[in-house]
């Protein structure tokens, strides 16, 4: 694929995307419209994230791509390959070694540093979309900081179900101003949104980019008497024994036996390498 420009997009397009990224960083949580391009993977497969990564990557970068927290899921493999081919950058599965991390649906367990950038793939950037389908309306609501509808929705959840019934893509307020969709990460990851790294969000089909600069206050919406709660399966990891990582539930046999394993495959691998063992670690080694 040598006939393509570095990281696929032409320089003019990358410049346009960088301008949107800088604007996003200057106005944390604000959705910046950008002229999203058709990419060689379908909309919904991370075209927004791919365009943001393409505009962010430099030849010296090391890229990590995860989907559902794992480096070996099919779409993560496909996007990693895309950048190996079109940008020729180093790639890694180790969170520690990456300078740019593109992710779908998770934030790595390891604390990210200030020399790292994390790029989120976003399907629907508008946190108010399912309360109000019209873009013209939701943009007005953001500009007037009119978020009453969102609080009513959360309140109705509580009165109906006794709890806020949003498990992922849990809305947050950024820097005390914009309500933002953190992309469909499980709400377990929400507290990590306050971090040292730069966070960029790309929505290709919806033509929006937004950002959270390092050390920005990010608050998950809640009520005093119903505070936000980051939840996970109430188990340790069956492979590495971690008590504090987000877990996937895996059905193992016809009898419905389950095991719980870290969704962040690199986190789990590095703990096992350091000698930590979970309930089923020995069987895994056989």
């Amino acid at each position, binding site marked *: 694929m040598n006939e*393509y*420009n570095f990281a*696929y997009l*032409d320089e003019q397009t990358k410049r346009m995307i960088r301008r949107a990224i800088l604007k996003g960083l200057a106005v944390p949580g604000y959705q910046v*419209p950008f*002229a*999203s391009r*058709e*990419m*060689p993977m*379908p*909309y*919904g*497969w991370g075209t927004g994230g791919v365009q943001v990564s393409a505009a962010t990557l430099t030849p010296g970068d090391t890229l990590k791509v995860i*989907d*559902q*927290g794992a480096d*070996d*899921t*099919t*779409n*993560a*493999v496909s996007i990693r*390959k895309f950048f190996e081919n079109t940008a020729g950058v180093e790639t890694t599965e180790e969170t520690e070694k990456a300078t740019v991390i593109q992710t*779908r*649906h*998770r934030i790595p367990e390891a604390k990210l540093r200030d020399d790292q950038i994390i790029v989120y793939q976003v*399907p629907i950037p508008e946190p108010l979309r399912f309360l109000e389908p*019209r*873009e*013209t309306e939701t943009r007005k609501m953001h500009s007037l900081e009119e978020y009453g509808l969102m609080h009513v929705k959360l309140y109705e959840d509580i009165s109906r*179900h*006794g*709890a806020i*019934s949003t*498990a*992922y*893509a849990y809305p947050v307020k950024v820097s005390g101003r914009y309500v933002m969709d953190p992309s*469909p*990460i*499980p709400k*377990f990851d929400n507290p990590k949104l306050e971090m040292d790294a730069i966070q960029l969000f790309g929505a290709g*089909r919806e*033509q929006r980019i937004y950002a959270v600069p390092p050390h920005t206050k990010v608050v998950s919406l809640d009520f005093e008497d119903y505070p936000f709660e980051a*939840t*996970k*399966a109430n188990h340790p990891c069956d*492979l590495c024994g971690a008590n504090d990582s*987000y*877990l*996937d*539930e*895996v*059905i*193992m046999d016809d009898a419905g036996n389950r*095991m719980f*394993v870290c*969704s962040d495959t690199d986190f789990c691998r590095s703990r096992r390498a350091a000698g930590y063992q979970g309930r*089923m670690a020995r069987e*895994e080694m056989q």
Partner: protein
Amino acid sequence: MYVAVKGGEKAIENAHAWLAEERRGSTDVAELSVAQIREQLSLAVNRVMAEGSLYDPDLAALAIKQARGDLIEAIFLIRAYRTTLPRFGYSNPVETAAMICDRRISATFKDAPGGQVLGPTFDYTHRLLDFKLAAEGEVPAVSEGPARTGSTPHITGFLRGEGIIQDEPASDETPGDLTREPLEFPTDRPLRLQSLTRGDEGFVLGMAYSTQRGYARNHAFVGELRIGKVPVEMDIPELGFAIEIGEIELTECETVNQFKGSKTEPPQFTRGYGLVFGQSERKSIAMALVDRALRWKELGEDNLGAPAQDEEFVLSHADNIQATGFLEHIKLPHYVDFQSELELVRKLRREAEERLTSKEAAE
């Protein structure tokens, strides 16, 4: 013991290899050439060029071959390729009045200067399967007449002379470019037309059909439908004048719509416009009807709340590459979010059960 799918890389490679085999089909059957697709499936080629927004019959034919005949997949290939092409500049507007027409009909007049030219149309064929084609598709030679000379003026031009159709004021303003600027609402007519001409044929057809069935009915007559070739010219700064850089085939439809007048406009005929790459008749008529429905605001008509009047609804959902991508992405892994939902539902059920038992205990 750990059964989660591993080895995604190898699996992807194998899937691609199998896909390539399936595309080829049985090797007992001769392989299809790109030229065969271009020449013998030309209406499919036209649709891929129109919705792919790239006029190149050879590339469109290649895309159809690669996509195993899945036209939306072929359109996607063309769109993705289009992204990589540098933008040298913009051509001058094409002059459809100067079109060399293969087909030109008007439903509003029995005859008109330039004549009713049927051209290669399915319209009056009986849709009977032609089993002879299964054996051979050679056509007998037919006699050719002399080429028609003289101009083919636009039908709406005659109505305009009488001042009985709404005027479209000429403008030298550069229209926006849907592929370079993000679509923001409200839009304007050039952007709406750009969106409709590359929109999914089925979607635009459905929207147009809904206006005919009464959801913002706009009483359309096909004032004119013309199909033919027009030259494309571009100003070359170094030369100081425009030169012809090629020729494209277009289908243009102008509808003449009955209009009883509104708060702001006198009774007169109004227009809808459709212009599509290639021979794409159904699409261009549908486009004209939807264009007309979307013009309610500028004509001072009432918003009837019909889907075809709602530009945000129509333009946000007309693009089949966006639609199919988002639709199909739900087959990607979502287990992290599903896990979160699982825990939430289990928790809510547990709490509901506890409430129930404590209530029963109290009774």
